[in-house]
């Protein structure tokens, strides 16, 4: 893999002999029986971009929650700018100059984008009246700066897709001048265009002396932007070193403690058959602006990828197929026969599954046990005459859990106690438990670590070999290129290009993706 | 000209007493045939405001007479004054408006109705007679703050003083059967030596009788108030010693008659035109 080293120019500056702005020494935290942090030691210099990586459940988010005053550590010392730092509330953390973009969203769905961005300090006059014009203008500027030009700042956030929401979160964190900015997997939902823009902003912050802690499962991003990287495993610091003194393989070894399997390699044989299991003909949903809609064919055992920029309509397509929202017009052929799905129930009954992109809102019942989440779509197979069989349910959970290498305390633990990536695996497990014939995947590895990703890829492929047809939406092009037999590119709710596996390349995909955009906006 | 319109304002139509009253008035209107009756009630007895709204609506409609059983003896004075100022004949029945409040407002209104306190005293005395001096009694009060509840409680207390009874406890059950049942069975636990119960209405008396049944106590005497039809079998069985009939069906009709007299140009009404009350026991129950 090649890495662009745009951060290199700054590295020398950052490695100057400044005293560290943030120091953690032997920080520990347990949640009941689960050890989340088991001695983390870390030091961040001023103006340094510090990568924080580790497997799902390694403790990254917990560490961040400690830093911003949501979770209290059991032991250990933290110093910020040379002084003791023990935040009791998020307010304390902000007062000391710490800003955080959390892994899970914290937005106000019915308030406007501008209000969300300014929620920490709504601009006010002497009487406490919000200066709305100033706020909207400020928000506009902030959104432009991160390249979110097509969003009206007066819209309620509920209208935005997940990637746009992520960008709004980032914009909010950038509103206040901070000493340390922490970004917990900000790129998990972004396509490369937004990621590029985010990196430009991080570069700019670095040059102004702000320290950034950057969490990501994409190692190439770590190499692109970070000055230093710390690897966590099982809640412990494995090592912490300048980016120039490490390598991709070393980081992976640090994270998983072993060499990655071969599954990441992209030379597997296609298992795609010729039998068409699902066809869309001029398929339209209510948001779709084009009369001719979308047409495509999905074959048995095929992994069909859908690429596109944020907002190109990929999520909406999957939701319409699954009848999460009733489609508008067009035909669905299921195994050659016309089918009409009026509700997810009917889609599921015809053998379709759907892994949604927003696991918190749509995928999981966070406060219920893991087992209850896994069995949610296949309750009839773990019950008799309407009576739940807990033993069967747990067995099913444990089986899928080990297939997916789920890291969890037990089937009866709440789903909310899982780390983000492990939650994603539970969502996958829920659908795999049904043995569907078609699986729609929307950002299936959002927030999943490298190791687990490889496992999920292998699993998807295993299922494809058994005849499962998959329609995969992903904003990570390497992911699509690794997994798919064929990729379609969407732009402005249209399919603008199709590539067979032999022709896969990032350039080609991006050309299609941007082409549609240019045609539309006239650039 | 058109027939005169009489607006009848009641407290609540949702119980036997007022229902009888309304039916009496309707039968009366049919019989006389020379006036139009419009009647309204309220959601519950403490909803003074909606009664006030009812009066205001009648003023708006320009009725000729308002015949009212006030939910509160003071709150209704001001709107009734407004009605009188608008030239509407007003007759007060069932519960008397407060004398002081009337004087303050500068109005003079006759009252057509029974003597709640006297009635309570009457039924209380029947109990006293059955128990003899020193008999231990408890009172179940109506809604605290309601005028008729206060009057009835005073009447019971009069009877207790006159009959030299011994009052063990006095509590509200808000006119309700179920609450009376619960409250009384608990009172009975606290005072197993209770000999008599004075309930401020028959609904509560029914709850008390049931509690006595459940506790297997047939030695305790109960009196009620209102003579609703559901107590007839209890009176016959001797489970209820006595109750008081205020002849509600007659009362509204009487008040309407008086109002129509005035509308027709008769003299202004004055003072308290008492209506009939009667003690009902096993002997005279229908």
């Amino acid at each position, binding site marked *: 893999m090649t890495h662009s080293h745009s951060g290199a120019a700054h590295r020398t500056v950052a490695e100057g002999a400044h005293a560290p702005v943030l120091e953690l020494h032997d920080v520990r935290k347990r949640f009941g029986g689960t050890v989340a942090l088991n001695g983390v030691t870390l030091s961040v210099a001023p103006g340094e971009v510090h990568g924080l990586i580790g497997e799902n459940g390694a403790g990254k988010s917990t560490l961040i929650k400690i830093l911003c005053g949501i979770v209290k550590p059991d032991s250990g010392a933290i110093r910020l700018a040379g002084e003791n730092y023990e935040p009791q509330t998020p307010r304390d953390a902000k007062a000391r100059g710490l800003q955080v973009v959390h892994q899970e969203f914290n937005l106000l769905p019915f308030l406007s984008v501008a209000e969300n961005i300014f929620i920490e300090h709504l601009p006010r006059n002497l009487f406490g009246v919000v200066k709305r014009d100033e706020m909207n203008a400020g928000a506009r500027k902030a959104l432009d700066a991160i390249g979110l030009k097509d969003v009206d700042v007066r819209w309620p956030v509920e209208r935005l897709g997940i990637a746009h929401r992520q960008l709004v979160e980032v914009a909010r964190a950038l509103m206040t001048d901070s000493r340390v900015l922490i970004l917990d997997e900000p790129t998990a939902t972004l396509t490369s265009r937004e990621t590029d823009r985010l990196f430009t902003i991080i570069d700019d912050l670095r040059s102004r002396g702000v320290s950034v802690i950057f969490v990501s499962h994409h190692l190439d991003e770590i190499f692109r932007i970070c000055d230093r990287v710390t690897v966590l495993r099982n809640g412990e610091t494995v090592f912490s070193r300048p980016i120039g003194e490490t390598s991709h393989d070393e980081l992976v070894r640090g994270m998983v403690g072993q060499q990655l399997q071969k599954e990441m390699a992209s030379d597997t044989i296609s298992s795609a058959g010729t039998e068409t299991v699902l066809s869309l003909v001029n398929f339209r949903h209510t948001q779709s602006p084009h009369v001719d809609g979308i047409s495509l064919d999905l074959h048995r055992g095929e992994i069909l990828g859908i690429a596109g920029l944020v907002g190109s309509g990929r999520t909406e397509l999957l939701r319409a197929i699954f009848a999460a929202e009733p489609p508008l017009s067009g035909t669905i052929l299921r195994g050659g026969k016309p089918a009409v799905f009026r509700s997810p129930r009917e889609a599921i009954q015809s053998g379709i599954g759907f892994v949604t992109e927003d696991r918190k*809102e749509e995928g*999981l*019942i966070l406060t*219920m046990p893991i087992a209850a989440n896994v069995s949610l779509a296949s*309750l009839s197979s773990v019950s008799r005459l*309407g009576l739940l069989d807990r033993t069967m349910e747990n067995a099913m959970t444990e089986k899928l859990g080990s297939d997916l290498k789920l890291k969890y305390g037990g089937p009866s633990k709440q789903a909310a106690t899982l780390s983000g990536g492990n939650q994603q695996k539970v969502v996958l497990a829920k659908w795999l438990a049904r043995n569907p014939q078609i699986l729609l995947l929307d950002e299936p590895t959002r927030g999943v670590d490298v190791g687990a990703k490889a496992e999920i890829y292998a699993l998807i492929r295993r299922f494809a070999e058994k005849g499962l047809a998959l329609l995969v939406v992903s904003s990570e092009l390497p992911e699509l290129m690794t997994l798919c037999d064929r990729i379609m590119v969407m732009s402005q709710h249209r399919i603008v290009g199709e590539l067979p596996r032999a022709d896969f390349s990032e350039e080609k995909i991006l050309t299609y993706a941007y082409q549609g955009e240019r045609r539309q906006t006239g650039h | 000209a058109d027939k005169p319109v009489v607006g009848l304002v009641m407290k609540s139509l949702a119980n*036997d007493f007022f229902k009888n009253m309304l039916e009496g008035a309707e039968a009366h209107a049919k019989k006389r045939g020379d006036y139009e009756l419009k009647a309204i009630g309220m959601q519950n007895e403490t909803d003074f405001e909606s009664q006030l709204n009812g009066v205001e609506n009648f003023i708006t409609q320009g009725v000729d007479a308002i015949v009212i059983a006030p939910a509160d003896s003071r709150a209704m004075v001001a709107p009734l004054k407004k009605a009188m100022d608008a030239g509407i004949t007003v007759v007060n029945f069932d519960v008397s408006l407060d004398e002081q409040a009337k004087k303050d407002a500068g109005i003079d209104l006759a009252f057509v109705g029974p003597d709640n306190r006297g009635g309570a005293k009457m039924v209380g005395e029947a109990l006293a007679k059955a128990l003899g001096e020193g008999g231990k009694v408890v009172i179940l009060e109506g809604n605290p703050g309601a005028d008729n509840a206060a009057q009835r409680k005073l009447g019971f207390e009069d009877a207790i003083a006159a009959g030299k009874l011994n009052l063990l406890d006095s509590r509200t059950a808000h006119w309700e059967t179920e609450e009376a049942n619960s409250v009384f069975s608990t009172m009975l*636990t606290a005072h197993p030596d209770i000999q008599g119960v004075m309930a401020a209405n028959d609904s509560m008396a029914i709850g008390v009788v*049931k509690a006595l049944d459940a506790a297997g106590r047939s030695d305790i005497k109960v009196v009620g108030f209102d003579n609703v039809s559901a107590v007839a079998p209890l009176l016959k069985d001797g489970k209820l010693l006595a109750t008081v009939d205020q002849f509600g069906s007659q009362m509204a009709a009487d008040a309407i008659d008086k109002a129509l007299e005035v509308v027709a140009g008769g003299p202004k009404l004055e003072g308290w035109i008492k209506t009939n009350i009667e003690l009902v026991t096993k002997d005279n129950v229908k």
Partner: protein
Amino acid sequence: MKGMSMKLVLRDAGIGIALLLLIVFFSLSTEHFLTPNNISNILTQITINLILAIGMTFVILIGGIDLSVGSMLAFCAVVAGTVLTIPDLSVFVAVGLATLAAIGTGVVCGFLNGWISAFWGLPSFIVTLGMLNIARGAALQVTDARTIYSFPQSFNAFGSQMVFGVPVVFLIALALVAVAWFVLSKTVFGRLLYGIGNNEEAVRLAGHSLMVYKVAAFTIAGALVGIAAMVYMARLNIASPIIGIGFELNAIAAVIIGGTSLSGGRGTVIGTLLGACIIGVLANGLILFGLSDFMRQMITGVVIILAVIIDKYRERITAA
């Protein structure tokens, strides 16, 4: 579900502690509180609220609320009372038909509550507020505001029957608690009710019809109102269109004091049982304690709040 149920047991224990404190207090401070007679009184007194609260638990678990139970109680009672007083029926037939009528009426009203709110996506608060008025008006209309009485003697006697000093009506309520507990914690149906209360979108996307479960929860609540109406009639031997006013608040209070979250998805019917006990013990004990009516009302308010504070406090210290 071991972890979860352990936690739930502890949660219930929390409110159990409050109940225990109340019982100990009244036992020490009043003479008659812990007598068998008084205990069976208390049990009788909580029965109706408990039955209503069981149904309310289903509704609140899916994130709904039912304000109409008090009015529905009156409506079910007058319908059943009308059937029960049909002349020339044998007692068995009359009681059987009346029970069917009561439950049927409850089921219809509950179904309407559920269907209207689920189909139109309306807040159940407003739909059941409408039903509160409709059912009350209907009860008054069908009876013309009159009380129905003169039920068969054996039916009336049934309301005060005891088995080993325990009121039979309370045993019925207890059986209903057991059934509800089983349904909620052991069946697929119950699991999905919890799921809907927690994240209805996730349940919908997993292929379940929200409509069915929501309507079912309200219908169950309605059926329980019908049963409560029969118990009311057996206990007080009347059916009046004005009974049950304000009963909804008591039922909701029992559910919430019992630890069920008003936003749905969390709680147990065992908690509801304890909540109903707290309310009943308080009402009874304060009278025995000899407090005046007005003080009693104030103290009731204070204790309701204290009970949930105790529960919260226990939660805080066990979490730490």
